[in-house]
């Protein structure tokens, strides 16, 4: 299958390894991956902070960049939720019927990485090997807006050598919340520290999730605490090792 | 402009751009409790509220009422004017019918009250009083500290929708689910605040023998 990658602005800038990991896994499974070069951002930060007008050109750009793609994959649950759940609203607010139609065409073809693997490609064992103790934090947009359910864990459980341990209070938000992390930094950090406590209680070496933005927040706290726990997008775990 | 017209005007203004179509209510929730022994379920659910529950055959009602009155140390008992005499036999308590109407202080002087009810809901363990036969006015079942309620099996329904269908929403209704309680201290339920602190429910069922 020919799959267009929407890497997202955060991954593009801060975690290019996550984009390369998606590429590696999909190519290993025999698929062709394209990277529409014009892509930038889904507009989530602007939309969620109240800058809906500024968001309109970004949505317009997104539907243009991915107009020809049959299937789009993205390693970010919150960006996929933005595209699938909110692009329509942005188009409505803009009062642009053409944009509304374009969104209706594009949005349903955009999949979060685990949705693509499990639902579209029917894969749970992607042939990875990662001999470490890992815990998974279901990020809020993946959990509640996309309903990812058990898909990421199913993929992780199939990884050779990986010891997946349950995270206590897993369904609780980590406190990132985009600009919330700055506007309400104290509450954000209090929530993040509780998440860190739960992570440390698992004894995991690696905390993984479907959103690098949340991992920047929790990982930043873990790093400041000199905890030694690494954070990694689960795509990077699925890309580790080879099919031998 | 008076407040009424102004508020109605604001409401109409606020809705001017709203879609005209009536909002349909999808009612796909359960209306009945199928395949359930509603009398047993009712008794079990009332018990969950830490109320006393007895299921008795009709001929055993009076002795059980008498026993429960003794057990709750009721000396003075308020009753609605139309309470069947056969519910109270050889109880030894002072019975005060609410006719002429008992004053609040007289009610406060009663240890307990004995009534029937209009409907009982199995799923939620609820009894509903509607001021109809054997129930009296609302204050009667409120002021005394012990409420003994006789529930004929025929009034027990499975679910809340069944109860709503049976009840007349223009009557003064009191739905009672267990003794008075509060969750106001650390969100733990504790029984016994301003309403009756003891609730005794006696289900009369012909099937019981």
């Amino acid at each position: 299958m020919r799959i267009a990658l929407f890497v997202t602005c955060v991954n593009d800038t801060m975690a290019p390894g996550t984009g390369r990991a998606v590429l590696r896994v999909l190519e290993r499974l025999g698929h062709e991956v394209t990277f529409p070069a014009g892509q930038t951002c889904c507009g989530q930060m602007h939309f969620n902070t109240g800058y809906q007008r500024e968001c309109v050109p970004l949505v317009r750009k997104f539907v243009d960049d991915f107009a020809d793609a049959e299937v789009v994959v993205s390693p970010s649950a919150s960006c996929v939720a933005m595209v699938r759940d909110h692009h329509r609203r942005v188009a409505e607010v803009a009062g642009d019927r053409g944009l509304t139609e374009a969104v209706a065409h594009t949005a349903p073809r955009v999949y979060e990485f685990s949705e693509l693997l499990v639902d579209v490609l029917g894969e749970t064992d992607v042939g990875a090997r990662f001999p470490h103790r890992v815990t998974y934090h279901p990020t809020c947009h993946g959990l509640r807006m996309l309903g990812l359910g058990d898909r990421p864990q199913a993929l992780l459980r199939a990884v050779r050598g990986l010891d997946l341990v349950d995270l206590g209070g897993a369904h609780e938000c980590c406190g990132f919340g985009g600009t919330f992390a700055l506007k309400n930094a104290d509450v954000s950090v209090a929530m993040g520290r509780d998440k860190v406590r739960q992570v440390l209680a698992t004894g995991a070496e690696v905390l993984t999730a479907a959103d690098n933005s949340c991992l920047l927040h929790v990982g930043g706290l873990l790093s400041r605490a000199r905890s030694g726990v690494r954070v990694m997008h689960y795509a990077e775990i699925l890309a580790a090792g080879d099919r031998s | 402009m008076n407040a009424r017209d102004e508020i109605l005007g604001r409401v109409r203004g606020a809705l001017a751009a709203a879609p005209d179509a009536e909002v349909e209510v999808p009612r796909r929730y359960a209306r009945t409790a199928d395949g359930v022994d509603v009398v047993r379920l009712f008794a079990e659910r009332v018990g969950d509220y830490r109320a006393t529950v007895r299921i008795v055959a009709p001929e055993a009602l009076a002795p059980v009422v008498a026993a429960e009155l003794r057990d709750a140390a009721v000396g003075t008992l308020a009753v609605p004017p139309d309470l069947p005499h056969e519910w109270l036999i050889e109880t030894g308590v002072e019975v005060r019918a609410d006719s002429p109407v008992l004053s609040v202080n007289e009610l406060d002087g009663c240890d307990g009250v004995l009534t029937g009810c209009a409907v009982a809901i199995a799923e939620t363990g609820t009894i509903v009083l509607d001021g109809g036969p054997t129930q009296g006015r609302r204050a009667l079942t409120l002021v005394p500290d012990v409420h003994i309620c006789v529930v004929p099996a025929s009034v027990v329904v499975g679910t809340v929708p069944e109860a709503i269908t049976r009840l007349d929403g223009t009557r003064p209704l009191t739905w009672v689910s267990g003794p008075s309680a509060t969750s106001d201290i650390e969100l733990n339920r504790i029984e016994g605040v301003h309403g009756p602190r003891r609730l005794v429910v006696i289900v009369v069922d012909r099937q019981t023998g």
Partner: protein
Amino acid sequence: MSGATWLGMPAFPEAARTALADEQLQANLRTATTTIRAKREAVVAERADWEHLRAAGAAIKDRTLRHLDRYLLRFEEQATAAGAVVHWARDAAEANRIVVDLVRAADADEVIKVKSMVTQEIDLNAALAAAGITAYETDLAELIVQLGDDLPSHILVPAIHRNRSQIRDIFRREMPDAPDDLTDDPAALAAAARRHLRRKFLTARVAVSGANFAVAESGALVVVESEGNGRMCLTLPEVLISVVGIEKLVPTWADLEVMLQLLPRSSTGERMNPYTSTWRGVHPGDGPREVHVVLLDNGRTDVLADDVGRQALRCIRCSACLNVCPVYERTGGHAYGSPYPGPIGAILTPQLRGMRDDPVAASLPYASTLCGACYEACPVRIDIPAALVHLRARAVDATRGPLSPERTVMRAAAWTLAGPRRLAAAQRLAALAGALLGRRGRIGRLPGPLAAWTRTRDTPVPPGQSFRTWWRRNRRGTAE
């Protein structure tokens, strides 16, 4: 009494900081929210048709709101026919004036009150006090708040921020008839409240209540409660005054079959609350001889006018959204600066009060991570995250014109993200800055606007090569 006030409270972030520093508060909130979450989950899980009930509950309220004028008139006609007197109040001041006049007309100088959010909203107790009328709160938690000269911090349990030993201390200090050896056993505390209020219940001539539901087709009101204080107030006095927000209507009696299932399970986590009372005007020989209903707007029609925000008027005040909210759990209710705390307060208060001249209200739409736990728990499916985002946009649009630092950043970001070249240039700049600021791949504390992030969190240095650069160097030529 009633010295405590919402006026002059700081905006949310600052109030939250104070709450986070209060360890006792943190412990009390955590205990209470953990308890109630587990109870709610258990009784909701019992119902296989829970999602159907939620859908019906949302539709019933939407149906009401769509033709609210019609249902208000129907209610008025029916309640009046049943002997009630219906009053209309545009705002808090008008509602308070109506109630004060009614109490005076009854020649009373005190009233007993059933817990009601709406009378908190209009600050009725202060208005009564100013008129020389003493209001006695009879709900246990409201009593704790009133005796402690405190403010409510939760919709269901206004004294959720107090634990049992703090409650005992308040009772010992402020309740004249509290026993000297009062312990912090909850049953003993409840018994003390019973003794304290018993004479009031038996002698009061006027009661004030709110209502959980008002049935348009019959003119009946519904009050849902636990302790029996509601029944006392609704049944024993001669005069009953109920203040009812106009959004409390439901079209038909049958609609209660949904609401009376959703509310107790979502609220106290019970299959059914101990007592529910319904009445329709005056019932001769049973209950008050004079029944008044005050229908209150106080900003509700402004909420109704907003096509996204109006779903807040579906709210049945169960408080499930507070109990599941990770932000509320850490800040408590006072930080929200209004009687409506938590996620629902964050969308209701800014709409009821307006955001333009009210910094507290304007800060509330941002008091959320948009995690969505509230929406998941809401029995009438209010999409609180969507409403929050919508109100943020309203706040931003209301202040368009003057350039704030945030607006500058957002505009710059939008400009940068408008094309891949600009983004690539910004990425090179970020990598350069990161290389300058970082040590061993980590950026630590930074001054200025970045301090809010970096004071507590390290940031990885942006890699020297962005994904798009890597792609261009390694994959150029691949079909795009």
